[in-house]
């Protein structure tokens, strides 16, 4: 596809989605208004735990002559696998990170993209790169298991693609190093864990206490939440937990289930009226 793109029926949203909707032109305007020269994108389909927060804070140390000016969270909103967090909690959970000052709102913004996750790991990361470049980001953070499901892919497949390319995918070099490739640059980060010896959340390539390190696990946290136990603040911000409980009360369930998916399908599907498309002869 090429040429001018026209939106035939712009989606209409209800709260809380409205305030997170930044299509490309609006996002770029907002970045300009904030005076951000470098902006790093954070892809998410999750409510953030403090491991995600550390990923954002530390990845943003990379910029050009100084750390990145802005962190742009771009949540994927649409059909997800059963057991993922509900969309509203993902958006407001990330918003709580800046609303309660864990990352200053001067440096952090939450936005969304309408897209049904394909869990395509490296291939999907290319699409993520295109989307985030279009909305004005200069950098993109890629962590472990990017857009992954189960152990189908190598946990660092996406990072390999953005570090040296994957020839079997037709990419002999990283996407930013190809002729007519993307301009957005990757920031590949491994993981953060809790180290009882350091007594803090540490970067896995820095902390050498691998024998005692306690890794973050989104599945473990979801299990904790399902059991009705509030996760400790060192792994989960209390304000973020309250967002989950708020939407749990709305849907009677804290995660995506069949009922939620059916509801979302009704709300998010857009029926386009039949159109006559003139064919230039």
């Amino acid at each position, binding site marked *: 596809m090429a040429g001018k793109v026209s939106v035939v029926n712009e989606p209409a949203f209800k709260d809380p989605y409205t305030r997170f909707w930044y299509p490309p032109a609006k996002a770029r305007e907002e970045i300009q208004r904030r005076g951000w020269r470098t902006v790093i994108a954070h892809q998410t389909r999750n409510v953030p735990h403090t491991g995600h927060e550390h990923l954002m804070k530390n990845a943003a140390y990379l910029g050009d002559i100084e750390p990145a000016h802005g962190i742009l969270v771009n949540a994927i909103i649409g059909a997800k696998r059963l057991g993922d967090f509900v969309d509203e909690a993902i958006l407001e959970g990330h918003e709580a990170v800046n609303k309660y000052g864990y990352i200053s709102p001067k440096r952090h913004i939450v936005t969304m993209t309408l897209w049904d996750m394909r869990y395509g790991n490296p291939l999907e990361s290319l699409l993520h790169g295109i989307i985030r470049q279009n909305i004005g980001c200069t950098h993109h953070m890629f962590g*472990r298991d990017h857009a992954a499901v*189960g152990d189908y892919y190598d946990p660092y497949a996406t990072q390999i693609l953005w570090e040296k390319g994957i020839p079997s995918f037709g990419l002999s070099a990283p996407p930013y190093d190809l002729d007519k490739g993307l301009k957005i640059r990757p920031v590949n980060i491994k993981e953060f864990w809790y180290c009882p010896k350091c007594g803090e959340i540490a970067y896995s390539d820095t902390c050498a206490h691998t024998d005692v390190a306690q890794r973050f*696990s989104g*599945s473990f946290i979801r299990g904790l939440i399902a059991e009705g136990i509030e996760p400790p603040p060192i792994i989960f911000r209390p304000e973020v937990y309250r967002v989950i409980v708020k939407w749990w009360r709305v849907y009677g369930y804290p995660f995506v289930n069949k009922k939620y998916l059916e509801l979302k399908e009704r709300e998010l599907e857009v029926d386009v009226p039949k159109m006559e498309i003139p064919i230039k002869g």
Partner: protein
Amino acid sequence: MPYKMAVILDKARLERIKGTQLEGLVKDLYGGYLKVLELDVPDDVAQRILKEFPRARIDARGFIEETPVVFKRELFEVIAQLKSVGREVFEELLKPERLGKIKELAAKEEEYLPPPTLPEERK
């Protein structure tokens, strides 16, 4: 490959295992904010759990997670009853009658889970 499962211990559960040999097996997680009992799960048992509960998965740490809440609850009950974290716990848990009840309750759980009361809402 052996996997693991962790059972979270809140105050009530800690009280239940007080004075038993299980007390010495309690592990601190995340700076002591959480207490857990960890169980080794033999490969055949892990495969069985994954088969019985399609949403269960093995996370990046090698732990079986996202089993139904009722499964975790029953797991603790069996641990407390047998005072063990060995293979026999899973043998008891996966007995047809017990497993049938767990699956029945788990199906309902996928439609509704009661939301928790927050500490500030408790009188």
